[in-house]
Each structure stands twice: as structure tokens, then as C-alpha cells.
């Protein structure tokens, strides 16, 4: 964890405690990405869901930044998030749970920019 990531961690705490903290789409994606990057030093690289899943999540969020996200992107985002429950230790499990909260509270924000057809 680095000092820069503290803001993001605070934000996540707010999200978890208070479901009303809402962000617009771009800020949300940016913040999630910063949060995931802040977790890199914690990841030990031993189990698959966390080591490869987190990178994959970031690549999927990149698609939001590029504006190329589709419904598949969203559903894969969801699947990888829930797959983090298969992680070996609490680093992966925590990332997974935080991401679950994000999805729960902001699903509509992430759903809106997705290309449907």
C-alpha cells in the first residue's frame, strides 16, 4: 500500500459504509483502477484468481476508458470479481469483496456506457 492510495482506500471505506456515495462513470473507473493498482504490491503471485484476475480486471476497465466496453465486458468483470472468492489468502478475497460492493452500489453507472448492440 502506498501513500497515494490512501485516498482511494478512504473512498472505498465510504462506499462500503455508505451506499449513497456516488461517482460519475469516468471517476468511478479511474478510482477503481487506482485502487487495483494500489493493491499490486500486496499481491504475492501465488494463486491464479488474484494474480491474473486483477490484471484482467484492469484491462477490462481500460475498455471503459476507451469506450469500447460491451455487455460481455461487464459480465466478465462480474465473473472475475466473483471468482476472486476462490483466492488463497485475504489479499485476493478482500479485493474481491471490495469489488463486489462497488458492483452492487454502482452497477447502473457501469451499465450505462456499455454498448448494447
Amino acid at each position, binding site marked *: 500500500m502506498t501513500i497515494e492510495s490512501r485516498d482511494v482506500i478512504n473512498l472505498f471505506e465510504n462506499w462500503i459504509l455508505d451506499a449513497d456515495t456516488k461517482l460519475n462513470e469516468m471517476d468511478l473507473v479511474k478510482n477503481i483502477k487506482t485502487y487495483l493498482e494500489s493493491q*499490486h*504490491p*500486496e*499481491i*504475492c*503471485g*501465488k*494463486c*491464479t*484468481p488474484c*494474480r*491474473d*484476475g*486483477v*490484471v*484482467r480486471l484492469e484491462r477490462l476497465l481500460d475498455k471503459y476508458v476507451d469506450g469500447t466496453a460491451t455487455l460481455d465486458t461487464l459480465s466478465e468483470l462480474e*465473473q*472475475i470479481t*466473483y*471468482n476472486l*472468492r*476462490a*483466492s*488463497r489468502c485475504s489479499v485476493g*478475497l478482500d479485493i474481491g469483496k471490495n469489488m463486489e460492493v462497488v458492483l452492487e452500489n454502482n452497477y447502473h453507472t457501469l451499465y450505462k456506457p456499455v454498448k448494447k448492440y
Partner: protein
Amino acid sequence: MAKITINGTVVKVKNGTTILNAATNLGIRIPTLCFLEEINEIGFCRTCVVEVKGEQDLVSACNTEVKNGMVIETDSKKVIDSRSKTLQLLASRHRFDCWRCPKDGMCEFYDILKEYHILFEEFGPGIARGTDLIEGSGISMDQSKCILCKRCVAVCSEVVTANVLKFRDDDGMNPFVSPTIGLNFDQTGCIFCGQCVKVCPTGTLFETDHIGRVNEMIQDPNKLVIVQVAPSVKTAIGEDFGYDIGTPIKETEGKMFRALKLLGFDIITDVAWGADLTVLEEGTELINRIQNGGTLPLFTSCCPAWVRYAELYEPEYLENLSTTKSPHIAQGALIKHYYAPKYLNKKPKDVYVVSIMPCTAKKYEIDCEGHEVDDIRDVDAVITVRGLSKMIKRQGIDFKRLDDYVPVSPLAKFTGAGAIFGASGGVTEGALRTVSEILDKKPLEKFDFKVLRGAEFKATKGVIKETTITIGGHKLNVAVVHGGAAIKEMFTRIKSGKKKYHFVEFMACPGGCVNGGGMPIVRDMPMHEVVKLRSNALYNQDSQDLPLRKSHENPSVLKAYEEFLVKPNSEEAHKYCHTHFTQKEYRNE
């Protein structure tokens, strides 16, 4: 006892059992990828995850012990989805070139992807984790296929105890497995036993390929290609063509020789002949050392992986190693300098000797210093059992329908003592049969040294078998050691000086050559059972099929001494059949 429910079935299992074992005993298969029983139970790959009622998260079945009252689901949607997703993630970092992969159809990763029906669109182009190809004379590593299961690392540290391959996770997001960074396998402490190649679930680790150069030589009309087949190859070659493990050697031997003939090898010989020769040389060395007070204990030098182990890690004991070359190298030298010029009218440089071996270390051995006579390498190429079956399949040969072929070369006639070299304890038994007859000066009545044969073993411990035999008034303490962990243990015993040993047989692979790194891969049977079946095939050949069972009775070996080598340990024998050992530098970091 704990009472648990797996998929609705209530069972009682012992405390301390893992969920995986409990399910397997019930007949429920849980897929695994990184799991190796007792060696690698770390839960890295997460394909064995199961759902436990009351737990928020999925748990890995391979290293979670059962608790009383557990309710386990191994095939719920949550579990299946998670496994698929994990496999997709792994596949997204694996380079797929399956049709030309050295794993050749034995890839566990491929099979599990197939089983879970993972679609290519779901994981994208499969970008490799690393691009490095780390080379070595015995084994090589292609990092673009690694899925970080850590099996090779576990085997290298637990079974072989060389600690060459390491899991490097300084950067947790991009970990990788490699020997010392920046070095190839030859510069590290790798002994090339090939146990890592056997456990790798993908084609990341593979034996260095000699098939190309052999095919080139077969097609060259000016070269006479002579092949020599190791005894343990015959126990396993059938396994790749639908025969059971431990099929009697006489059923597949003739077919294999016919297949070799069809592949285009000019003359077929048998390494068991070289083994008979080795027994005479090594036995004479032992007698000399006992009678003239030489360095004891005498260590065997048949296993190149063990010889490299000694050169790297125990250099102060190099004096103890028997200077006799390993059987196939000695035989290669004699083929080139005695058999070919005398009987085939060929110059040594026109002869190309190929060994079929159960071993990857032999590939390293042929390029070693000292394994050449008059600047001509004794053996030019080594092909493993897996390599041979690949060649046979590639040539379109239907192995099962072949007729039997009996090689005519005098160097294909061998005795039982040479045949059992492939099993652990075989070298000692073969040597003792000869040594005791020479020292006792009377024919041996009972020559089955059962104490030296098979034993239940754990891969992580290896086996040390010790016995005391009285021969010619000398009490000889004999030991048979196989497996890396056992070699270490033996050296602490030797160094402690509590017991004086006279003859110690070392083999780097647990179980001996029959469990070598180049043997066919067996996935659904524990290692010790495979070893038992294959060694029994060798011992049965010795006791049932072969009329002669003592090396010094082999007429063609005796003829070679008459015509060429004069007598064991003579000057000529030293030139062609003996070598020397030097300490080697290595870096394991």
C-alpha cells in the same frame, strides 16, 4: 473420525483427511492441476476449489482438512463457474502451439481445458507470461508455457533436493519459475535427472531434442547408424502403444527391435551388454580396492545424474567413484573402436551411435569431458523412451501389429545381471554375482539378492537399503541408495563414520532407471507402484527368460576381452572403458 457430507452423500472419514482424498475415495473426481500427492499440496492453481456450506469463500480441496459436520459441494454452479474462470485466466497467459508441443498429448492443462470446454473467445489470444527459452544439455525450459503450478519447484527441492528451479515472486504480479536468473541449466546445480520434466503439466520443461540430428544421420548414406537400447526402455516402450504397465518384456521387446529396424537404424545392440562389461570392470575395481587397500567405499558411476551430483555437491568424494564409464558410453566406445572396425569394416568416424535411454541426464553425459577416445565422441545422440515412441508414431508404424525381430549383433547378447541394471539395486546385485564368484572361487548357488530388491518408498525420502554380505572371507557392507533425499542422508551417514561401507550404489531417481526422467508419463498411478511393476518386469526377464545370469559368463563380452581389451582394468580397458571426474562449479541462487 469426522462425519461429512459430499454432494449429499454422508460418509465417515478419518480426521486429517483432505477433502480431495475423501472425495476420491467416494468416487468423486475433483480436477487438480498443481497438486502432487505429498510433494506439492499448496493450492496455487485453484482448480480444485469446492463449496463448503457456511463458508463465504471457496476452499481448495487439495489442502483443506475435513472437519466434523462439513457439508461439501463439488459440482455446484458456483464451483464450476469459478473453475472455468480460473482456467480462462490461466489460459490467457499460456502460449498455445499444442500440435508441435514437446509434451505430445500428455498435457494435463490441455485435457482440463477440454474437460471444462473453455472457449477461445473467452480468454483471448493467450499471451505468454515470459518469452525466455532457457537451454540445457539435458533439459530445457520454455517459459512461455508456464502456468506457475510450482510442481517442478517442489520436485526439485523435495525429491531431488537440488533446489535449482525456484519460484521467483519478487514482483508478485509477474512471478516466474527459473534456475539462477541469466544462466542456462549447465551453469547451475541442475543434475538433469528429468523428474521436473515428468511432473510438468504443460510443455514448459522438456528434454533437449536429439531426434532431428538422428534423422539426419539415418538419411546420410555414408554413416552407419548403430542404436543401443537400455534394459529399462523395454519395460516401458509398450505403455505408449496401449500395453499395460509391467507387461512382460518378451511381449514388446521383439516389436521394439522391429520398429527400430523400420526407423532405419542399421544395427541394433543392447546396453545390457555394456552393463555386463561394466560389471566386470567395476567388480574388478572393487576387488582391487578391497585387496590392495584402495579408497573405500566404492561408489557406482552408472547414473550420470548422480555423477554430476557428486561432481557438484560432494567433490571430496570423487576418489570414491568407480572410474568405469556408464554402460552406454563404454559400449559406444567399443562399438566405434572394436566392433565396427573389426566386424563391419567401418572406420570409427563413419559410425554414429545412438542410445535409447530412460534418462535425460544421459543427454548431458555424452558431451562430458572424458567420454571420448582419440577425439571421437563415444555416443553421438540420446533419445528418451518418449522420444522413441514419438519417432515410431511419426513414421506411421503400427507398433502392436509388428512381428518380432531378434537382433543379430553379438553386442545384443546379454545376461540377467546386465538386464537388471535398470532397477534400483540391480547394479549391486549384478556386481555381487560376479565378485562373489571370483573371490569365493566357486560357482554361486543362490544369486537372488532379495534384500537389495524393491521396497516401499516415499518419493520425498528415497530409499536406503543396507546389507552385509560375506564374500571370500571379507565382510562387505553394501548399500543401495536412490532418490535425491536419500543421497543426502547417505552422505551424513558416511561422514559420521559410524559404519564403514564397501560398496554403495547411487541412483538419482527414486526407484532407479525404471522411474527415469525420460520414461513415459503415468498420471493415474502412484510412483511407487509404477516402479514396482516395471522393476518386476526386469527381474522376471532375469529369472525366466535368460539362460545366463552372471556377467562373466557372457560369451561375447569374454570374446571382446580376448580380442581387444585383454582383461578387466587392463591398459586397453582403461583407454576405452574408463573416465575421470573433476569438480564442477555451479551457481544456485
